[in-house]
Each structure stands twice: as C-alpha cells, then as structure tokens.
C-alpha cells in the first residue's frame, strides 16, 4: 500500500511527530526542579510528568516523562523544545497558538516550530485532548513550586 492512498493518517502522523515520538527531547527528570506536576488523561491512560527549573520568569530547564500515545508524548517533546530557555510569557503564547490551531482551525503560527506538525490532529477530535495534556501539566507545574524552593 502506498502513501498516496493513505492521505488522512499521513496528515496526522507526520514524520516530525513520529521522530519526536521515537527520539524525545528533554525526556527524563531534573536534579533540582523548582516546579513539578503530573497529569493523567483518565479516558485513555496517557500520563505526563513535568519538572521545571525556573530562573525568575525564565524556564531555565525542563524535563518530562510519562507514557501514552505518540500524540501526547511527541507534543511534550516538541513543547519542551519550544519553551526551553524562554520566559513564561512566550510559553503561554505558544500554547495559545497551539490550541487555536487544534480547536479553532487557526492557521499554524510561526512561533509553533515543530508543533505545527500536529495540525492534523484537529481532524480527529477525540485525540485533541492527547495533544493538550502536556500543556495542561505545564500550566499545572507553573502553579506548583516545590515546597523547599518557596522557602528560599
């Protein structure tokens, strides 16, 4: 079977996505995270954990792990690349552009970088929450400074 007859999943499972799934970036744990959160998608069992080391307003380090489908795991990987070493504000802007692309059919913005590869997910509504899980956990982690750190 040649790819010409498989337009739909070609569009969803783009090479960039598969490549991040096979070789995730920033996967693992941080030694001294300042922030941490975990999230589970109970319907499908996808899991994401995120460690952050914030330097003021800047995401100085990020690491994620977890398990689940290629969409949830590759999104986490791509996201980590796009927001590493950036201010929180930039992460929020990327998130907004990402959600607009998936749920409102917006054209992919330039700030999405590799995340643009997930555009095809918008045609599989039931998978959108897979792509949003990493972002949900990121938001959660930003609200969850480690106890020790807050005593600094």
């Amino acid at each position: 079977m040649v790819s010409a007859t498989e337009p739909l999943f070609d569009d969803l499972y783009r090479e960039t996505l598969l490549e991040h799934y096979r070789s995730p970036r920033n996967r693992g744990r941080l030694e001294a995270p300042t922030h941490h959160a975990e999230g589970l998608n109970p319907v499908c069992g996808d899991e994401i954990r995120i460690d952050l080391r914030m330097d003021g307003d800047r995401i100085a380090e990020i690491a994620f792990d977890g398990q689940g489908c290629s969409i949830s795991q590759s999104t986490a990987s791509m996201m980590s690349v796009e927001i590493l070493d950036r201010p929180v504000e930039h992460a929020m802007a990327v998130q907004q552009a990402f959600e607009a692309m998936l749920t409102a059919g917006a054209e992919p913005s330039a700030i999405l970088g590799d995340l643009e590869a997930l555009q095809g997910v918008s045609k599989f509504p039931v998978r959108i929450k897979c792509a949003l899980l990493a972002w949900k956990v990121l938001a959660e982690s930003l609200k969850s400074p480690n106890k020790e750190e807050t005593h600094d």
Partner: protein
Amino acid sequence: MFSATKIREDFPILRRTVHDRPLVYLDNAATTQKPRQVIESLVRYYETNNANIHRGIHTLSVEATEQYEAVRGKVALLIGAPSNDSIVFTRNTTESINLVARSWGDANLSEGDEIVLSLMEHHSNIVPWQLLARRTGARLRYIEVTADGHLDLDMARQLIGPRTKLVSLVHMSNVLGTINPIGEIAGMAHAAGARFLVDAAQSAPHLPIDVTGLGADFLAFSAHKMLGPTGVGVLWAADGLLSEMEPFLGGGEMISLVRQDESTWADLPHKFEAGTPNIADVIGFGAALDYLAGLGMPAVREHERNITAYALDRLGALPGLNIHGPSDVDQRGGAVSFSLEGIHPHDISTILDSRGIAIRAGHHCAQLLMRALDVPATSRASFYIYNTEDEVDALVEAVEAVQRVFNGVSHRTAV
C-alpha cells in the same frame, strides 16, 4: 445456510462510509449493529402501539403489554429458562449485576464472608461487589489468569471455600475471548454452598446457552450486544431466588398494595421492574431474538469460530504483533486483543479509523486484567454475524500500514 454476505444486507449501517472508506465494524464486543428488522420493530411500535403497559384497559395499552410480555418468552427460549417469571428486564448487564449485589447481596453477606471474582472481570462485575463489600464488610478474592489467558483453576479451587458466599464470573472474556469452564466453577461454588453469578454479556450474544445446564444461579446480559436496542438488559435467576429477595427499586408497577408505612409487592418478575419500563426497546429486543433464532445460535457460533480462526492465523503471522488470550478457537470467542510492540493502541485505532476500520483501543473496562497482562491498554477487534474474511484482510493490511508508519519501513525511513 448461514451467509454473512446475505446477513449484511439487513444492516443499513454497513452501507455507510467512514473517512471515505466502507465501514468495517469490528467493535462488536462493545455493541453490535442492528438489523432493519429491529429498527422497523421500534418504528412499528411507536407508530401503532405506543402506550404505557400493565394497568391500561384501552387497546393500545393491551397491545403494548402483550408485545412487551411476549419478549420474556423469547429470552427464556434463548437461554433455556424453565419459566418466564424468572426473567427481569433491566437497563444493561451492569444494572442486572448491581440488582443482585443490592437485593441479594445486602441480605446475604456480612463481615468475613467472601466474594470470589477473577482478574479478567469487566468493571461491571467488580465495582458492584466492591461497593457491596464496603457496605457489608465482606471481602473480595480474585482468581488469577494464566499466561495463556485461562483462569487459574487450581487457584479457584483454593479460593472457593466455606467462607465463599458468592462466585461471580465472566462466561466469555471481553478482552481475551476466553470461554471459562462455567460448569466446573459452578460445581466448586455449589459444593462450598455459595451462589454463582454468570456475567453472560459476551456469551449470550455468541454461544448457545442453557442456564440449567450451566449451573448458574444468576445470569446477566445486555440486548445491545446482541442486535438489540440500547437500554435493555436481562437478569435471570434460578427458581426461588427472586421471590426471597427484597425489591431493588421501589415505585409504580412493582407493588400490590401501598399503605403509608409499608407496601406489598407485585408478583414476579414485576416486583423487580419499578416504574415505566423501556417498553419499546424490550419489544425491539424481541425482534433481535427472533433474528438470532432464525439463524440459530449454533450457526452463529460456528461462523464466529471460523472467522476468529482466520483472524488469529493472519494476525498471528505479523511480526511484532502479540495476541492476548487462548489460541485454540474451541476455547475462545471472537474478541481478539493484540499489542504491537512500541505502538500505542490509540495510535493504532486512529490509523485504522482513517481507513474506515472500527476497533476498540483502551483498557476495555478491565483495568485489573491490563495490570495482570502488564500492558497499559490493548487493541481489540471483535466479530459478529455480519463480519467477513475480507474484513479481516482489511484489518491485517491496515495493521501492516500502522507498522510501516511507526517502524519507518516505508518511504518514511529516510528521516
């Protein structure tokens, strides 16, 4: 002669396309499609007979009551029940099991008593007993599952003992396809003085069943998994059990005399059918039972045995594909779960869907079994009377495509 191709003509939905491909519906363990005979019986009911039943004197009500009650006889025929009065209509298998847990369980279990289940149970045959255990102080014990997907019968023999008050077991696993040795377990349960509930959600639609032969005390199943409408379940109970039990739900239709402080109950089975029942869908279920009776359950089983054998053969030949559950088609039904190394079931299901193939991916309401199998989820194809070998071929081809995408053996290797 049984002909899946001929049968397909009765199922309007099988003419639809999904993502521009013909629908290949392989999610029958979740729910089956409905033949036009069932759909037409719903339309006929609502267009000509619709009325509330049991207490009406007018013609519509008399007709509706007759049609509704006649379905009990069809259910009795299907499962070899000696009487219609032992057949209660519920919403689904889940409600049937909960009914037993509340009405029989609350009255018969107490601290220290044990309920024996297995690790291959559907959540609907686990959670009601957890809730009962919490109410009564009873304890749950689980029979484990062997590596080849069978019940560990030695362990069953150890667990079922003088403390056991109830054994509740799935007849055919919705994940592994395993057909459990119900007669043998019934023997153990009864020797221990325990009652035995059989979750027949996956067996009643697919196997000839004879309740008296099985040795079950309770049997539960769902219409929607056997060509019938959603919203109808069956609870059958052995002679005498229902009459001893307290009502489950109170209300209209299940009473005889109502006084301010207490009431007396209607005759069986009405005592367990409070409020306006799902009249139309019970009648529609009657049409489904007629359809199955027309085919004959042995022929249904034979067709599924064949298509399952073919699917096991073809899927089993794919490298990196692992089938969970028995390989002997005499010991299993047509629910075929598999895992592809390194590929998440949700990704498999999405790619199959993009080719019009509907399978189920997830824990299949069997989280304990997923943990026992040490997988987060599986992919499951499950067959019914209208499935063909061509559809199995389409499935196999699509799985190969999934592997190409993920393992990069196609043009995509060049990353």
